């Protein structure tokens, strides 16, 4: 079991936050909860097949707020001949964001309704403004510390979304991405799960595999991932508790 003091969340969320990652052999006990009793907001991630831990947390007043699904798909298995992919392909393009001004323009495009299904936005204690600020802070931190790459998604030459990702020796970690609010609910959400595949095809830079994580609360997005036959690698039950 790992307990992480999320000190970076304090300024954004205005409280002390701890994240507890349960490992496969862990069995939660009162002693474990004592270690986190001073935190204002605790997040516990329980991997699947640990139902006893789920029941224990529920009895201790934790609320199940989402299931985090780790998904992946190999480049080779991606169907570029799918009619929906072919429909989008010719109108989409991508560009890497390197320049500080371009990055700042991207940050300005991130608005409170863009990410509407993360656990912070959905939590009545925090809400969408804090949810948005938190993502922007994360992105800024990653950019300034060179911890991730950023890519702009363009549809008919207009920026419609972005991707924050890492490429670890051919395995792309799709950390964060999305479509700007103005373009949501019109079908181009498909560019969220397909962005790296389409970009790689266009630039002839195939990779091994894309891995990413989505929330069970993000129904529009998991419909796309399901359609594209992404593999489910792991599921985590995410519990939270406010002091």
């Amino acid at each position: 079991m790992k307990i992480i003091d999320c000190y970076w969340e304090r300024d954004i969320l205005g409280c002390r936050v701890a994240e507890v990652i349960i490992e496969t052999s862990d069995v939660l006990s009162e002693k474990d909860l004592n270690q986190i009793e001073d935190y204002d907001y605790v997040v516990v991630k329980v991997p699947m097949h640990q139902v006893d831990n789920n029941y224990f947390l529920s009895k201790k007043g934790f609320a199940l707020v989402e299931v985090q699904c780790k998904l992946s798909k190999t480049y080779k298995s991606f169907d570029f001949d799918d009619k929906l992919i072919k429909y989008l392909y010719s109108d989409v393009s991508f560009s890497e964001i390197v320049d500080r001004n371009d990055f700042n323009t991207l940050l300005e495009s991130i608005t409170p309704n863009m990410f509407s299904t993360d656990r912070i936005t959905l939590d009545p204690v925090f809400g969408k403004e804090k949810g948005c600020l938190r993502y922007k802070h994360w992105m800024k931190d990653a950019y300034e510390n060179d911890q991730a790459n950023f890519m702009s998604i363009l549809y008919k030459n207009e920026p419609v979304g972005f991707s924050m990702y890492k490429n670890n020796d051919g395995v792309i970690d799709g950390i964060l991405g999305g479509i700007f609010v103005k373009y949501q609910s019109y079908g181009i959400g498909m560019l969220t799960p397909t962005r790296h595949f389409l970009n790689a095809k266009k630039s002839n830079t195939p990779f091994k595999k894309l891995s990413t994580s989505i929330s069970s609360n993000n129904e529009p997005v998991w419909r796309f991932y399901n359609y594209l036959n992404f593999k489910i690698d792991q599921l985590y039950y995410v519990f939270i508790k406010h002091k």
Partner: protein
Amino acid sequence: MISKEIFFQQFVEAAEIDTEIELALDSNFRDFDEWSSLAGLCVMQMMTELTGKPFTVSDIKNCNTLGDLYKYIEANENH
């Protein structure tokens, strides 16, 4: 010009709408329970196939009812 009935059938298949629902030209397609971004993309692709002309995000933004989509097909159908 495809008939209204064939158009409804194609729409139901593309968007995976419950076939028990009564469709009408004044039905607002965004009100269907099954409507989603994926359904929207499937319908855009269907409209492109039916007309032979690209039907894009701007076009679907201007449509709210099945009647709007059907009128678009009337105006743009590939002969």
